């Protein structure tokens, strides 16, 4: 069973959002990393880039496939996880911790309330797996 931490917000594209004041940290879920398999490459934007909600901000590649990753909420990138350039496999081993992808300054902090809760996301992945 995939790990779904209680304190995060989730998107139907399998990203998670951790709110930190007016900023948010974004990564992909345990369910997503497990479906992808071994992550071998992560492409991230540069600090300063601006994204609307549900826009692709980068991609995650396994041996077999490329998947885009989307911003669940609008914001401006303040920091990216540089460590993923050399150790993309952290996305597999620690998707909610060291495997985070970008930190954004939220354009509209209220937007997180439109995302899925942990319980809702868990139901969503169960339905998707069936």
């Amino acid at each position: 069973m995939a790990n779904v931490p209680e304190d995060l917000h989730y998107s139907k594209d399998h990203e998670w959002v951790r709110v930190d004041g007016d900023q948010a940290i974004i990564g992909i879920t345990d369910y997503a990393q497990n479906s992808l398999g071994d992550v071998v490459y992560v492409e991230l934007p540069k600090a300063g880039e601006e994204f609307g909600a549900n826009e692709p901000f980068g991609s995650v590649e396994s041996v077999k496939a490329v998947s885009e990753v989307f911003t669940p909420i609008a914001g401006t990138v303040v920091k990216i996880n540089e460590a993923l350039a050399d150790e993309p496999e952290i996305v597999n081993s620690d998707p909610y911790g060291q495997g985070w992808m970008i930190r954004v300054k939220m354009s509209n902090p209220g937007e997180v309330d439109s995302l899925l809760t942990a319980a809702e996301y868990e139901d969503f992945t169960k339905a998707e797996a069936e």
Partner: protein
Amino acid sequence: MVDFGGWDMPVQYPAGTIEEHLRTRAHAGLFDVSHMGEIEVRGRDAIAFVNRLTSNDVAKLADGQAQYTALTTHTGTVVDDLLVYRIAGDHLLLVVNAGTTEKDWEWIESNHTGEMVQLKNVSADYCQLALQGPDAESILRKLTEVPIQDIRYYTFRPGSVDGVRAVISRTGYTGEDGFEIYAPAARAEKLWNQILDAGNTGSPTGVLPCGLAARNTLRLEAGLALYGHEIDETTTLLEANLGWICKLDKGDFIGRDALARQKEEGVKRKLVGFEMTGRGIARDDHEVVIGGQRLGKVTSGSPAPFLKKNIGFAYAPVEFAAVGQEIQIDVRGRLVDAQIVKTPFYKRAK
């Protein structure tokens, strides 16, 4: 699971593609390739008939030998690539790709004219398991009385594998030593489990079941063409560097004249291997950019788990196809540097 030519095939098993790939290089991997098609050709003219349809020289085979070859079109392009097994002078088995079995069958039948042969599509009768890797021989030895150390590369012997009647062939698609085992389809599961047991599956050095993704990365590192990617009905054997299976002086065969002409005139484009020198992974169908011009396409692109590089095959104009040529790959709108390198990318130590 994915649909692969109508077969439900696992892309990977729980260990994951990278581990499956590395285990096959270091120890052993087991692949269920029962989806491959088998077509039997029996009769007095079996050799002459298959020789007229394929580019390599079937007449060179002795009983118990196998050969890599291609069914060619009249323009020298590829209907399919295949293995021909000579069971006897009047009995050949053609092992073809899954997705092309129907097409191959129609092509072979429609080109059957005067020869004394009977054709039979026996694909559903056989399972095929490929046991590949340096430990393949020691694992298989536990399960059979057949002196498999005497089965040389590209030869085969009938025999029984732990009570299952089989044909043991020293062939493969991974760049490693190994065997492809053909057995009655109904015994596939038993054979699969017995090989895994004999190979200590579950131990860190034991045999691992491997899926389609590892089969693809292994064959790519080993520089082997995949039908539908490097070769198809738009690419000639010479363009695909398969001149070594074009025996132009063996007598007439379908596509011979076109291939002879192309050999004389020289090919205009060529299949090349490349390695990414910039950060990025080339994927199938990405465009090749040379000197700012879009001049070719990637036929297979992937990370190479053993080499720890990102590699691929592409077609490039022959004037830009030399080893060392700097090229770029358009990776979803971003031009990433790459360089043409020698193939095979990986060659096992003897």
